[in-house]
């Protein structure tokens, strides 16, 4: 199995070769390493990884298009692509085209600060979401026009839900 794995923006090429009691791995990129590994999913999303004799616990949650990965006390953003399929990698979000403004956390929509068709500037507040008595202002990621408003004041939103589309 050959994969391209991106961790916090750094890309690595990973090769995994199954063996009797685990796998051999070869990693190339900013860090290059190789050796034997055993990967065991102890509960859904929690992996016990042995590299040689060293033991790590890795917790993985899917969060939109990337994986949110915890190990030790650090969080990392990881994406994985098959090397035969390079289509995913080219689709980096860019300045052009519509951009979805998503809720980072679940909450209640307190105020919608813009109207459909309005011109907005990067950094301008679009929506105020409240959770647990704290308010969070969702800002426009770029200059553009409000093409869509999916929420209304008083409604609730889930994490990752698209609130507004700016084009």
């Amino acid at each position: 199995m050959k994969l391209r794995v991106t961790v916090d923006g750094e890309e690595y090429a990973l090769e995994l070769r199954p063996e009797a009691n685990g796998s051999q791995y070869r990693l190339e990129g900013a860090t290059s390493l190789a050796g034997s590994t055993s990967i065991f999913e102890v509960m859904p999303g929690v992996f016990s990884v042995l590299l040689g004799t060293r033991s790590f616990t890795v917790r993985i949650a899917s969060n939109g298009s990337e994986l949110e990965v915890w190990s030790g006390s650090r969080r990392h953003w990881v994406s994985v692509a098959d090397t035969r399929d390079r289509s995913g990698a080219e689709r980096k979000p860019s300045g052009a085209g519509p951009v979805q403004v998503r809720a980072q956390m679940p909450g209640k929509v307190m105020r919608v600060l813009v109207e459909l068709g309005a011109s907005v500037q990067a950094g301008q507040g679009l929506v105020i979401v409240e959770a647990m008595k704290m308010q969070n202002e969702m800002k426009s990621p770029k200059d553009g026009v409000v093409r869509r408003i999916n929420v209304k004041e008083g409604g609730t939103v889930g994490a990752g839900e698209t609130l507004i589309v700016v084009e």
Partner: protein
Amino acid sequence: MFRKVLVANRGEIAVRVIRCLREMNIASVAVYSDADRGALHVQMADEAVWVGPAPSIESYLRIECILEAARTTGAEAIHPGYGFLSENAGFAKACAEAGIKFIGPSWEAIEEMGSKTAARRLAIRANAPVVPGTERGIADPEEARKAGAQIGYPVLLKASAGGGGKGMRRVDTEADLAASMRDASSEAERAFGSGEVYLEKLIERPRHIEIQVLGDEDGHLIHLGERECSIQRRHQKVIEESPSPLVLARPELRQQIGEAALRIAREAKYSNAGTLEFLADQHGSFYFLEMNTRLQVEHPVTEWVTGIDLVRWQILIAAGEKLTIQQKDISWNGSGIECRVYAEDPENNFFPSPGRIVQYVEPSGPGVRVDGGVYPGWTVPIDYDPLLAKLSVWADSRPAAIERMRRAVSEFRVLGITTNLALFGEIFADEAFAAGNLDTAFLDRFMQRRFTGAVDPQQLAAIIVAAAKSESQNPQKVLENGSVESAWRAVRRRELMR
């Protein structure tokens, strides 16, 4: 003794009180809102009564509904926990009028200590040190100048009606006083509808140190020593400990602050459990700030070092029992530390992160206690405080307690929502924290200076192979709209569309 007690709260503190009632063989009654039908405190109580919709103003804060729940179930007393109605003198009074025992001090004591200015006057009567300042609002810049000269700079301008930092200004020299006063007053006017401000001595690098007191209804009062709660974010405590590192350096302080606290509590004719908050400077001068007339979130660290069950005593005292412990019986053993596990993201300005908890495993083992209010599968509602659980430890010394905390934090597994556990891992490995040089701005500075070094290459490799394994089980698909989702999710979506 009571046969049945209603717990007018939710989350971990409701669980804490219900656990105590169970150990005392007293039946427990929970109350719950629409958001909390599946909450842990509802499962653990012997009875549960619905009190309204999710917003607390329509449920947990509705005095008449809570009293009605107590009447319906025949509860003889109400434990208010902290927050919600716990410091509401009107509620305590309504309980008394309904013939239901309020587990806490008298409503008169709540009322008096609930006013910061009344509490300050009472402390002065009790000959306890307070932060030097004008007793009341100042009318004009000239009066302020006089007061500032008397108190000594730096000083702090504060809004009489306020809190939360609004209408507050630090003033370092007399020259800045008039302009700052104008700013503070207009900010206070906007925030609280009153522009009145007063002057207070500014304590540099203040430490938050508080004294736990406990008294019965016959006036026998003792103190259980101090807790230091200087690690705060947004003026909210996140780590608390006993003894305070300041007291470890200056052991005479415990008795000095403890006695000042007792003088105030006696003056207030206080009974049941209460906490007197002080500011201390780095030299050991201390000043009374305010009193919390209820059980404190961080009470477990005092329980660890004294071996005394505060909730049990709250209930015994409310039932009319005498406090059989004398001041001389209290001894302090080892070191207790607590951290508050919040559903929040320290990397995103501590913004709350409610949602469904997918995996949840609490740490345990020697010297570890968790006061939790959640369970795997529970959806943390968006409507209340983000406190999930309090993790506390004990060891025979502060350094050993810190190491134990580091160990326990590393075992605490919460998946599905973001918590501040990883940040605790860093703080408990921090040398400045270990040295005990704390003040209330410690955490703000820590967030600036913390350095997350390079990841161990093997740990990085572990992350990569685990991610690869995870994705090979659930390969992702690129959707028409350019976003990506895992294959199994796509399958499920197709099934739902059939």
